[in-house]
């Protein structure tokens, strides 16, 4: 989705959400708030920047997710793989706020794949299907 934005573009948050809906693209739950409240998105090379009006905390599936006013990450897409790396401005609260570092997805078949989320010092591994990631 972010890879298809083009090389140097700027769009509104509404355009981003419309594009995601059109592409039937679903973010992992823990990353969804950064898109749902975005006011603008821009891409320069492989670096995506998402702006929101102000920093906010969200409750997502029992987790507290913090989205800073500016979230930035690199997009890397390969054959059957996609990754958001060098993430800044996104964190999860487990007593302390651990920063998200990277999210990597590798496909293992149609609508199936593995999702690895590096948050704080740990990499959390999830298995994904058409029902979501667990």
């Amino acid at each position, binding site marked *: 989705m972010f890879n298809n934005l083009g090389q140097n573009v700027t769009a509104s948050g509404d355009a981003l959400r419309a594009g995601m809906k059109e592409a039937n693209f679903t973010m992992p739950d823990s990353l969804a*708030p950064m898109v749902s409240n975005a006011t603008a998105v821009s891409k320069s090379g492989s670096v995506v920047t998402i702006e929101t009006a*102000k*920093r*906010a*905390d*969200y*409750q*997502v599936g*029992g*987790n*507290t997710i*913090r989205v*800073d006013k*500016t979230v*930035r990450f690199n997009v890397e897409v390969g054959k059957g793989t996609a990754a958001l790396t060098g993430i*800044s*401005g996104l*964190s*999860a*609260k*487990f*007593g*302390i*706020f*651990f*920063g998200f570092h990277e999210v990597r997805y590798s496909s293992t078949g149609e609508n199936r794949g593995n999702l*690895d989320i590096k*948050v*704080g*010092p*740990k*990499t*959390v*591994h999830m298995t994904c299907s058409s029902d979501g990631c667990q």
Partner: protein
Amino acid sequence: MFTTRNLLRLFLVCGFGPLAFFCDKGEVQQIIQITSGRLGEGGPQCSPDGHYLAFEYFSPEHPNAVQLWLMPTTGKFSDAKSLLGYTGKSYGEISWSQDSAWLSFIGGSPESSGVISSQVFKINVASGEIAPLANLPAGTSLGAGTSWSKHEQIAFEMDDDIYVVSKSGGSVAKLIDVKDKLPGVSPFYPSWSPDGARVAFVGRTDQERGLYVADLESRRIEKVLSNVADDGPSWFDDSRILASHVEGQANSAIWMVNIRDKSHVSLTHGFYDISPAGCADGKYIYFSRNADISQTNGPLMRGFHIWRASMRAFSP
């Protein structure tokens, strides 16, 4: 001579396990694990009278929710009890009052949109009475951490600046204008020095996390350490700060930093150690350790437990 007995002694002196002595860390005498909950514990804070340890408890039933627990510093983990159990709300980031009767904390309630509104609270450790200290607008996101000063003010982060509210509550006031002095730096975990003259905090940018000290009289803010971990600092005394320092991909060590000359001493190494806190006039420090950070399945706080290091007496 490397007899079996000597090898065994070397293993014990420099080794690992629930009881570990560190051979090259002269300031630390002994390190022991003191909590052993079913999932994890973190954020230890020792009461100023040295009698109690407050900490954040994570249960297997609600692995991502913080509960506040208390245990006597001279007791066992079986003596620990819940002060603020699971309610479905978000809270944590505690700090003791000077009389050891209250804990300040940040609490948050989700609105129907999923946005969390945060406030500063205090809880009486004897009665469990909870009192809000501020009346912040809906949707307010408070940084991380509270810190209760000797002057009975509670510091916290809001909108990239550091604010205070009095222990009796009321209006909040800006204490340190971080946005103006350090553009692009978000202050997390403000921590008053014991004499109330300085506030340390972790400054987060897109690129890194640094430990900063603000002098309240001169209004100067100085960076004293780079590459700190996700947690906050704790003052050991008026000139030295305990902080966690990232070491490689998966390790974090507890460092003691002298703010006068920015020198440091590494107190632990080889594990993922965070959230240090001094206690009992410098005789002990407490911190949260994950001895095997490589586990990739399950809740993030699994495997974090609280450890205590006995300190040798040493001068600044």
